């Protein structure tokens, strides 16, 4: 890091065009409307099964698209991170690289300015979703009972699992808190 860069030529924040693209492709309003349509007239057990398939598929595509666009639209923060990872022989890759793509995914599709990161170190990546638009939409469109089944958790869990698999990082993904019970959802990736 011996050269001094001209700071004003760089952007250290996420590219707004990338966020807009992702936000449009994975619009939670449209996704929850499609889900509401798909579960009309179905039993609780059928809704659970349908929810798993629907949201796992959504989550997988959402994070893979975030990964792809995140690489196509790098920012200076990411470039410095990659330089630091290279300098430290790969140390720092987990949890900071997954953290970046998870932040991209949530910041582009949710109405939040930051994603609360509870822990990020060599052993654990833990993040929290408090004011979730997906959950609110499920409450409005499908009712409280369906929302409380939390079918949308499959999107977040699958996204986190898929991300770590595609980055070839061995991690155990867990849900540490759930919106209906705890008032927020919290996800943890624990380095295996």
């Amino acid at each position, binding site marked *: *890091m*011996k*050269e*001094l*860069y001209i*700071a004003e030529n*760089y952007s*250290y*924040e*996420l590219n707004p065009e990338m*966020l807009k693209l992702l936000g449009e492709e994975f619009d939670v309003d449209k996704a929850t409307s499609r889900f509401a349509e798909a579960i009309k007239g179905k039993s609780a057990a059928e809704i659970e099964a349908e929810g798993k398939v629907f949201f796992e598929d959504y989550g997988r595509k959402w994070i893979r698209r975030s990964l792809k666009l995140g690489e196509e639209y790098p920012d*200076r*923060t990411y470039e*410095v*991170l990659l*330089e*630091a990872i290279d*300098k*430290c*022989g790969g*140390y*720092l890759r987990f*949890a*900071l690289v997954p*953290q*970046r793509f998870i*932040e*991209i995914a949530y*910041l582009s599709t949710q109405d*939040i*300015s*930051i*994603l*609360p*990161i*509870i*822990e*990020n*170190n*060599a052993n*654990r990546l*833990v993040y929290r979703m408090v004011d979730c638009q997906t959950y609110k939409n499920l409450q409005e469109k499908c009712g409280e009972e369906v929302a409380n089944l939390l079918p949308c958790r499959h999107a977040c869990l699958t996204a986190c699992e898929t991300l770590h698999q595609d980055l070839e990082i061995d991690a155990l993904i867990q849900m540490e808190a759930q919106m209906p019970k705890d008032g927020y959802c919290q996800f943890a990736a624990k380095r295996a």
Partner: protein
Amino acid sequence: MCWVCEAYGDPEVENGRWYLNPKNHSRNMYKIKKPGQKAAAYGSDPEAQSGRNIGEIMQYRFKDTEKFQQLIKEANAMKGSGPFQIGQVIPIQEAYKVVEMAYPVAAMSCICRIHARAQEERNEHEYSCTGLGVGMLKWERWPERYKGGVNFMTPDEAKEWLRKWNKKGMVHIIMTFGGSYVGGVCNCDYPDCGMIRNRVDYGIETGCLKSHWVAKIDYDLCTGCGVCVQRCQFGAIKFEVTLEKTNIDQMKCFGCGLCETGCPTGAIELVDRESFPGLREVW
């Protein structure tokens, strides 16, 4: 327990030590700005703001000494709600734990030495301060602060680097960077370090709280070499001429451990402050 541990520690994690709580080392990497909102300018960070607030107090040092003393009392009473950085002395054993947990760790030049001695630390061999956490990935935004750049380190490199500064006689102080978020570990000495100087010379406590440890001497092992006296930045150790041994004033001791690491006979050890009823609340 110190007030910082009470406010930000978790009793189930590392004895409630706030600086060893992983949550205080974690932060988001990105923020979505509102339309038209620009990135924060240099000097708007907690470190610079804290410095300006101390400066506001310092201007009364000669202008109005009574008001000066009053402002210091008020600043100390504010504790966590005050507009100052929190700093706490930690021994090297705990500094090692911090660099294992913090992510990333980057050595950088010391802002206090630039101010106190007009001394720039020009490369990674001279850097005496560390920045911790994802904010360090954006260091280039503030080239005036991070002159010469930063040097990202693995935990093993960071520990070796800490050992180097400990051997030279520097006190490790852990600093916050906004709320309870741990921003760095400084390697400090008097009078270069603003935090130590503010505490020792003027009694401003927040930036330099005592550690959770206190030094204790075994007189049977002490040979009176005086190394510990030279290494103490806080005037807590005195050579007793008649005994030809050193004595530690535990009320003055900040628990930095420099005496312990410098003692050639192992006569000094750090003991938990909690084990001395009279020192439990002496921060």
